[in-house]
């Protein structure tokens, strides 16, 4: 399958100087038994989006089709089963965090018999009005003597992931660490903090859950000192690596700080080889658990975007605005053709500008606020993008059962934001 959603290389490549992927190195992987091609630096999510894959999973109960929503660890839908053989099965890996490597095999964790054709999805659609919210599969337990027959089908139709039934052959390790300063998150703030602390001679640990240092800078095409963010990140990381070679600093990528306990005791889960291969080499550690006692802790974790609420906002094609910017700027992937942005602040405008600059159409920016003239909204207007003020998307619609968003229903709001009036329909593919 071709990477239909990839920004073509020849097209204004200078705009993507900050991109972190390498087109010269194609990587082949399989998703639900089908072969796809991505490039070096892609996560599973960005590669699937590049290949135009909409549905990556099914909702837990009703089997509604679900697409990729975010570009980070907050991903609720793209949760996959990884592993090329029984011993290396890893359930519930977020496609937005896992880098692809040659020969990677992954499957949707939910959605038997297949993600596109789903038993519960059809069931849920047919019998939706008989299934109260909060309905549970145990409803099927009566009559009890039948349960043993349909349990295996229902269990198969539900659930997330499965554990391997063979022993894991990889090596895992636990290390006790001590530091003057532990910095959680390596975005602009975290990198600056690490630099400052290292220059003062402190013993520093810098941990970041992403596959590269840079945090939100990786998703942005803003300029730092008239140069792209990548240059700034590379310069800072180069200096930090110098400190690391002196044994004063520990840089941890692919490392999630997963606990902040009493008296500055923190635990870090580092994935050493998961992004490179299915199984670690002989005597190589696959994952490492760091138990850190720090004198000081700096939380530079950044912020997560909260999804907006409207009917059918779980349809494939509804994404976070920040995720759209990330896929465009970092992975050169535009997840769709036509975009409608709904926003309550200026950050939604950035997604619209990125989308437009990537060469695809922005149908409109729907802003819940009253008309205003911020710098970003002026930029958006200058690009010829419609802004609909004091309005909200109230519903996303689809054409067929398994298809992605095809239109958005927009209504204008009264001054308090309590009531809506008037209906307008906009065609879009991504929301």
């Amino acid at each position, binding site marked *: 399958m071709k990477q239909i959603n990839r920004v073509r290389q020849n097209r204004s490549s200078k705009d993507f100087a900050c991109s972190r992927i390498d087109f010269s190195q194609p990587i082949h992987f399989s998703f639900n038994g089908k072969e796809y091609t991505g490039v070096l630096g892609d996560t599973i999510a960005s590669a699937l989006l590049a290949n135009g894959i909409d549905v990556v999973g099914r909702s837990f109960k009703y089997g509604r089709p679900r697409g990729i929503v975010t570009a980070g660890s907050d991903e609720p839908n793209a949760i996959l089963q990884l592993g090329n053989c029984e011993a290396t099965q890893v359930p519930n890996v977020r496609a937005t965090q896992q880098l692809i490597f040659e020969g990677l095999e992954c499957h949707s964790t939910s959605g038997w018999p297949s993600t596109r054709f789903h038993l519960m999805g059809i069931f849920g659609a047919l019998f939706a009005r008989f299934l109260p919210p909060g309905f549970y599969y145990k409803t099927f337990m009566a009559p009890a003597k039948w349960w043993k027959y349909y349990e295996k089908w229902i269990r198969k139709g539900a659930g997330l992931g499965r554990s391997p039934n063979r022993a894991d052959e990889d090596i895992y390790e636990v290390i006790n660490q001590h530091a003057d300063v532990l910095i959680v998150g390596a975005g602009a703030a975290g990198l600056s903090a690490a630099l400052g602390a290292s220059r003062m001679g402190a013993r520093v640990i810098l941990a970041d859950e992403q596959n590269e240092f840079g945090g939100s800078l990786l998703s942005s095409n803003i300029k730092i000192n008239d140069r792209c963010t990548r240059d700034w990140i590379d310069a800072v990381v180069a200096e930090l690596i110098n400190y690391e070679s002196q044994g004063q600093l520990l840089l941890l990528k692919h490392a999630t700080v997963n606990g902040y306990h*009493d*008296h500055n005791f923190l635990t870090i889960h580092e994935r050493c080889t998961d992004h490179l291969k299915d199984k670690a080499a002989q005597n190589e550690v696959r994952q490492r658990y760091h138990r850190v006692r720090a004198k000081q802790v700096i939380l530079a974790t950044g912020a997560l975007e909260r999804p907006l609420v409207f009917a059918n906002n779980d349809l494939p094609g509804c994404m976070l605005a920040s995720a759209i910017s990330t896929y465009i700027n970092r992975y050169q992937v535009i997840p769709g053709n036509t975009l409608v942005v709904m926003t309550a602040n200026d950050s939604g405008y950035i997604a619209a500008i990125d989308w437009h600059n990537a060469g695809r159409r922005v149908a409109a920016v729907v802003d819940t606020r009253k008309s205003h003239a911020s710098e970003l909204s002026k930029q958006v207007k200058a690009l010829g993008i419609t802004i609909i003020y004091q309005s909200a998307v109230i519903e996303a619609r689809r054409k067929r059962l398994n298809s992605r968003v095809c239109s958005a229903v927009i209504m204008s709001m009264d001054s308090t934001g309590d009531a809506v009036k008037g209906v307008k329909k906009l065609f879009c593919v991504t929301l």
Partner: protein
Amino acid sequence: MFLIHCPICNEPRSEDEFHCAGEGHIQRPLDPMATSDKEWGDYLFFRSNPRGTYRELWQHTIGCRKYFYIKRNTETYQIYKTYKLDDKSERVALDKEHSNKNKFGDLL
């Protein structure tokens, strides 16, 4: 996990080297045979379990194996100090708190 300064080793060590032995400064009745059942029951089983400042007996089980006291806050987990068994200053402070409590009831 706590970071506990052992007053005997004179070093901060991780909590998993220690073992908590319950409330500190509990005095065994000098003549057990002369105490009433209530007094003996209080001594054996009843602990103050406050929300706030608490003095506990701890043992550095996989270190020096010595017992010592910790004065800490059960709400914030802050450790105010650790001190040796022969340190009488906290005993005095504790007696003062008790007598104030008797005087003013639960106001304090």
